[in-house]
């Protein structure tokens, strides 16, 4: 544990240096530099701090009911985390709903640990050390247990299949003051905003590379961010209203992108700019 933290702190320092150097550089060399740093950071991604905190939380009795996540079924049986994320989102008959990881964690917190919905989602996204997010830490721990496992979202399951199709429609849905859809920025190869490379999510390879590297430690924010956060902040920049945490639309779009990533080995939590 101590080694993990020391390595993570060293990585955070390196990462800080990266954040400063990216600004004025050329795009090509920026991408190269980021690739180099990623390599250097591979053994010391600060995401490990979130994973360690999440593991403690997963195993400890929590909430008004003082129960751990040992009874929380992420789809592979109560308490089973190994490989679970690679099959999410999935349909959960006990909730009569397709759920992604974060939504399922909240469901367990509410239905098993006795939290109110409001308490369970109070710090859905962390904001520095003052407002650390339990959900981000738990997501980091659970997703890390799928590292190397091939994405396998059950697209032949009717509920999941339906969400996938709705998510696909959302991906191409243009609206707002700027006419933006997800596809506006993520529908073509080799594009970038300013110097930031954009994945082409309409291609399987693009979706695989992007989806399998969330959650990620975001160097520029000093925070570990989940896929719910990623979608939420994309829509903010799209000039849309706010995507509600754990909403059906957030799960549909996740089902679409996760489903398109099927077959690729999950590789998170990763580290990103």
């Amino acid at each position, binding site marked *: 544990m101590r080694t993990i933290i020391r390595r993570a702190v060293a990585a955070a320092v390196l990462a800080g240096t990266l954040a400063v150097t990216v600004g004025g550089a050329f795009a090509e060399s920026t991408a190269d530099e980021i690739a180099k740093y990623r390599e250097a950071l591979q053994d010391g991604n600060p995401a490990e701090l979130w994973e360690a905190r999440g593991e403690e939380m997963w195993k400890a009795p929590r909430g008004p009911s003082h129960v751990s996540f040992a009874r929380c079924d992420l789809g592979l049986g109560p308490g089973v985390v190994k490989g679970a994320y690679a099959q999410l989102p999935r349909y959960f008959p006990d909730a009569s709903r397709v759920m992604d990881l974060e939504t399922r964690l909240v469901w367990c917190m509410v239905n098993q640990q006795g939290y109110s919905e409001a308490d369970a989602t109070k710090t859905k996204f962390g904001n520095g050390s003052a407002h650390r997010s339990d959900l981000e830490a738990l997501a980091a721990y659970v997703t890390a247990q799928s590292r190397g496992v091939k994405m396998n979202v059950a697209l032949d399951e009717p509920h999941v299949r339906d969400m996938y199709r709705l998510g696909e429609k959302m991906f191409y849905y243009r609206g707002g003051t*700027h006419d933006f859809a997800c596809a506006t920025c993520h529908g073509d190869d080799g*594009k970038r905003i300013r*110097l930031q490379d954009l994945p082409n999510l*309409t291609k399987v390879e693009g979706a695989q590379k992007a989806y399998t590297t969330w959650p990620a430690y975001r160097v520029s924010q000093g925070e570990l961010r989940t896929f719910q956060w990623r979608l939420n902040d994309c829509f*903010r920049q799209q000039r849309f209203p706010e*995507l509600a945490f754990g909403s059906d639309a957030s799960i549909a779009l996740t089902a679409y992108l996760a489903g398109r990533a099927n077959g690729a080995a999950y590789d998170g939590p990763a580290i990103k700019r």
Partner: protein
Amino acid sequence: MGIIGRLVAGAALVAIAGGVLHGCATAPADTEVSDRAAAMMKSSFKSRGQATLARLDQDETQRLCSEYAGRALPASIATKIEQANLATIQYPADGKLVGDWKSGEKIAQSGQGFQYSDDPNKPAGANCYACHQLSPKELSYGTIGPSLYHFGKLHGYSDATRKYAWQKIYNAEAFAACSNMPRFGHHHILTEQQIRDVVALLVDPASPVNQ
């Protein structure tokens, strides 16, 4: 509705469904999925600050461009979109289309505006550099749109070029149906004076874009 009426309606539904399904017996019709997706979004997003739920209401251009996204846009639909958008373009009462390129450069650099996290009382930017190369001094530019370096120099410093720049910024859908470029005038993202200034950045011979 009488029995015959219902039978006819039923037959028509079957015919429509048959035409859309392409032999896949379980897939719901495409428009039905689109309608449900739109309804789902309405209940999954919430108004925040200036970004209200009304932003999810599509106009005809947005609706058609969403419907045909990811596949070839039929020429007849493209023409329809372009003509409808060309008709929306308004010109300054005084006929002056070109402003100050220095102010235009600032507008091109700014990505502020219309996000729920933005202050609605501050002027919005056009964020041109997010997608286009313009002044060669700015190395941090995006590539979603074409390079506009030497725009005036290449197109010629003519009235026609100035008018085209105004129209394109005002409503890009008038020239390229389902363009990725926001309709800065049509959606009132930029003021009339701001559009003039961005036009100047493109067409003023003294602008860094044309050096």
